[in-house]
């Protein structure tokens, strides 16, 4: 195993120069706290039956916020069901994320101008969309980059291969971020693929691969910043493997006790990405409990408001079922809507 790129060690000490000043580190720490607050809240809401199945990202906040923070606001983001932290940080509102989790497609429509696609539920198919988006930007003479997030399991899908190959062949400005969180539901990373690292797969496409400590906010930011800069200059794509861990279950429907030990989980809890930054800030006199409390309270307030708004929305009606399929409702769907109304005694 190569040594992962690391800037902040597990005790919060800098082992290399920080790419960010302390104000920015504080901002990102605040974002990680907000993201974790969201994550815990969703798990709680799901237990109360107020959300459908939820996939926790606890433990992966640094990998998501660190890389997302390296983007320009107009860069495209194409992420998956476990990447709410990155999506939110890049402008996708909590409300939309929550709506999706209540089972309401309206969550998939972020505010105009937010360059973040709805989360991909299928594993693997979405990376090529980031390749196409980056390609489009180049063809249009824009220097926008597209970042895509996926897991260790997703690298086994043929679509990962085709996306990586297209990106390298056309040198599209795409940043591939693999959050290797150790597991794909019940399959451990070492049985997902026989390669020592996922980063080394980049070489198969003639693209640089970077192996990063995914629980190190600063290292994740540095890796993504370099990849984005390279892409923006026409240097083509990069694959980043952020080594992290899924501390929670795969989803609220999963029972990790069936396939992994608590010791393994505890080990990773000790490497918590938030705690690492907190220690760093505290040592620098940039953190105190009051601020922590303030961050958590602000995040909770924002989320309470978003939850309330989501739950007040009228449930989608037949109009929403048929109306989203095409720009204009075609005859056969108008007819089917009529049939539904007739069956319901409304037509």
């Amino acid at each position, binding site marked *: 195993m190569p040594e992962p790129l690391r800037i902040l060690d597990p005790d919060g000490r800098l082992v290399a120069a920080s790419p960010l000043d302390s104000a920015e580190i504080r901002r990102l720490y605040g974002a990680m706290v907000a993201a974790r607050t969201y994550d815990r809240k969703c798990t709680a809401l799901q237990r109360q039956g107020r959300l*459908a*199945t939820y996939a926790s990202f606890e433990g992966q906040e640094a990998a998501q916020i660190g890389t997302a923070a390296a983007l320009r606001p107009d860069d495209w983001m194409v992420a998956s*069901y476990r990447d709410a932290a990155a999506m939110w940080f890049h402008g996708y509102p909590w409300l939309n994320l929550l709506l999706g989790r*209540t*089972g*309401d*497609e309206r969550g998939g429509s972020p505010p105009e101008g937010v360059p973040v696609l709805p989360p991909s*539920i*299928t*594993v*693997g*198919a979405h990376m090529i969309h980031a390749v196409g988006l980056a390609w489009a930007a180049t063809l249009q003479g824009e220097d926008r980059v597209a970042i895509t997030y996926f897991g260790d*399991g*997703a690298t*086994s*899908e*043929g*679509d990962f291969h085709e996306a990586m190959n297209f990106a390298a062949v056309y040198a599209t400005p795409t940043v591939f971020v693999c959050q290797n969180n150790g597991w*794909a*539901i*019940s*399959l451990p990373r070492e*049985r*997902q*693929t026989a390669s020592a690292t996922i980063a080394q797969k980049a070489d198969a496409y003639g693209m640089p691969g970077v192996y990063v400590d995914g629980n190190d906010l600063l290292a994740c930011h540095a890796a993504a910043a370099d990849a984005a800069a390279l892409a923006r200059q026409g240097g083509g794509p990069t694959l980043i493997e952020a080594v992290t861990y899924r501390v929670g279950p795969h989803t609220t*429907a*999963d*029972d990790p006790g*069936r*396939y992994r030990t608590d010791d393994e989980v505890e080990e990773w809890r000790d490497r918590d990405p938030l705690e690492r930054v907190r220690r760093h800030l505290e040592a620098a006199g940039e953190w105190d409990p009051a601020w922590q409390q303030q961050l958590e309270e602000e995040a909770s307030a924002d989320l309470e408001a978003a939850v309330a708004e989501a739950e007040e929305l009228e*449930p*989608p*009606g*037949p109009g*929403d*079922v*048929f109306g*989203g*399929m095409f720009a204009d409702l075609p005859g*056969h*769907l108008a007819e*089917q*809507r009529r049939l*539904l109304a*007739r*069956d*319901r*005694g409304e037509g």
Partner: protein
Amino acid sequence: MAELNVAQALNAALDTALAADPQVMLLGEDVGRTGGVFRVTDGLQRKHGEARVVDTPVAESGIVGAALGLAIGGMRPVAEIQFLGFAYPGYDQLVSHVGRIRHRSRHRFTAPLVVRIPYGGGIGAAEHHSESTEAVFTHTPGLKVVVPSRPYDAKGLLLAAIEDPDPVVFLEPIRSYRAVREDIPDEAYTVALGEAAVEQEGGDVTIVAYGAAMRDARAAAADLAATGVGVDLIDLRTLVPLDAATVLESIEKTGRLVVVQEGHRTAGFAAELAALAAERALYSLAAPVERVTGWDTVVPLRRAEHHYIPDAARIMAAARRALDA
């Protein structure tokens, strides 16, 4: 005898097959250590070993393609695709190779394999987790397509599918996994592929359904019967090869056909049954054929799913129209 639900009956069938035939093996995502997201393979890896109950990487084309190679090589693989919405990456292997190797080699190489796939909605799942695109597989030459609706058939049909010398796509209705229990013989038994079940007889209207929709069809049939309407209720159980004779016989008797299908409407399997009636029982039809189907839309998520999935009320409404025509 044991009282089992569909998931348990399927588990029993797989256990039986693994015990009876050393060539039988299971492969798929999370089928081993966790026993599958619906627990259909629960405990089977512990009992039959990691070599025969195999957790695979996340790669559906690889799962189906490897199963084909295993089958040509003499094994009897039973592959699982975690949800029908994730079967599409493996569709090329099914249509281009699994369904063709026997024909391509004039029986020299064959594909005695089963692909188990949980399908259908009704549990408020995430996008891609509620698909009912069985019609695509029925339109794919060389595949048999089986859809059980109840525990007894689930075990018997799965054992028949595993024994079958040709590839079988075996669709398991998600919302029926734990809905009902039936007494299931402990020993091995098969329910023949290609035979529909007439669950209820009556002379007035024919209701044909399969899989998850059977629950709603049964409810509608019961309500109709309660109002004195004689219903022929047919559970197709196998879509390919279709038991056309049983369906036609009933139509000739009732002259009224209601077909229930959760899948999308256009060119769905209900269209095939309507075509069957229009071709081979036209003169018996006393009323327009009624298709009660899902729509040509994405299956809605939790909050709007009920607008999509055919329910007993819609089936009743269709039957009433047929009766009043």
